[in-house]
């Protein structure tokens, strides 16, 4: 038991620093996932067939390709091709673009969950297509997508551990825990603290999304 605490106190720099790197990685990738995911979702529900197909190709590509392939491709692949991409850019872009496909699907299903009658009512009241989307559809869609967005964020935090384990080797929580393990030979303790770190992050996200959901809930 004392070993457990010793590993934490003697290597708080590695573990705390790793947690901070994981946090920044996840935050930046989440921002990209939201922006790209929204654009792709807009393509998926666009009035033009070709735009819808384009969105579909994005989703099917990024959802069916392993994240490890994306990470290696964006770092080693681009560098070999002469593009001087950094560890952070490659990690954030891969994780963000990968997650964006899932975000797009959630947003799309959120829009479809708004009943058709609402849209018809809004149009018949004289709202334009854009106004209907902005005032009627999106506010309702946003509420329904909050729980699944929370799940995606949690999945992304877990997936972020692959960035440090891949060729990108960013010093994230898991990577640093493995460094501590290699230095101290304390396998259980090192991995346990990494697990605790990830559970802390996912726990915080769970609570944050639950609060957001409660705050935005409409009293009916």
């Amino acid at each position: 038991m004392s070993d457990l605490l010793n590993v934490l106190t003697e290597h708080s720099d590695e573990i705390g620093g790793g947690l901070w790197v994981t946090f920044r990685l996840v935050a930046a990738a989440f921002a990209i996932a939201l922006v790209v995911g929204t654009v792709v979702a807009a393509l998926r529900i666009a009035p033009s067939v070709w735009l819808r197909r384009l969105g579909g190709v994005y989703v099917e590509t990024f959802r069916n390709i392993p994240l490890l392939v994306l990470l290696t491709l964006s770092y080693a692949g681009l560098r070999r091709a002469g593009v001087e991409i950094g560890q952070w850019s490659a990690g954030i872009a891969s994780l963000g673009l990968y997650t964006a496909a899932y975000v797009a699907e959630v947003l799309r299903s959120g829009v479809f969950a708004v009943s058709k009658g609402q849209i018809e009512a809004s149009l018949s009241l004289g709202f334009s297509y854009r106004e209907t989307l902005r005032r009627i559809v999106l506010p309702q869609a946003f509420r329904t997508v909050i729980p699944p967005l929370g799940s995606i964020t949690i999945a992304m935090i877990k997936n972020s551990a692959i960035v440090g384990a891949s060729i990108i080797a960013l010093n994230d929580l898991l990577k640093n825990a493995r460094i501590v393990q290699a230095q101290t030979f304390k396998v259980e303790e090192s991995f346990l603290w990494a697990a605790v770190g990830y559970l802390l992050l996912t726990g915080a996200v769970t609570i944050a999304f639950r609060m957001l959901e409660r705050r935005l809930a409409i009293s009916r």
Partner: protein
Amino acid sequence: MGYLFDPDNWEWLITGRNARFVLEGFLVNLQIALIAMFFSLVLGLGLALLRLSRVRGVGAATGLWTDLWRNLPLILVILYLAIALPVTWREAYEDHAPGFLPEALQTGRVFAALLALVLYNSAVLAEIMRAGIQSLDRGQGEAAAALGMSYAQRMRLVILPQGLRRMVPATISQLITLNKDTTLVSIIGIQEVMRHGRILTGNNFFGGVQAPVLQVLIFVGILFIVVNLLLSRLSRRLEIRERERTGTTIEPVSGLEDQVTTATAR
């Protein structure tokens, strides 16, 4: 763009046994996926039933177990087991691994990888199945009980066929995730498609052409996309057929295995 489509950069693919070598690696991934799928589905169903057990403590204990495994990053579990698994276990696996498996699947490390994949995926699948069972109308089970059916009969004849059928899309979506996750085992040194790709892009290999990393990985990515699209096509086919045949509603999901469990659990 020029670099991407430059025929020189694709020459590796038709040189020597390169394409075959990548495909051989991919086959290892598929085999790992199939083995892990089988055990995850079986164990997942068992966990789902235990989770719903009315015996005191069993449900809560199973819930703790599944929540633990499904909230940890899979790669953490893989790396941990690769180091921490007792040597005797690995040796036992090496001794008993069936001979028809390829050489890459005979090493003890594969046991750690399979164990991690099954622990994680059985937990996720158990939650999906539990959500499916619980989303059924209570009256179904009650009616079956009123007809004099035993617990086993109720489960086998009434509850599971309906509850699990609803969750076919979510289950297949998780199996696609499992399929993608098999690439993670390359990190603990199992010779599968990522490792084979790495070998091709290293020093001159078959045919003396050094393959560019980007093109090799695009090829690997396409292999995964093809197999996973076939899986989701299968899911859609099953869904439509079942809906026509039975008139049951199926939970609509779109590649969001974790979402289903949280959405239906509340």
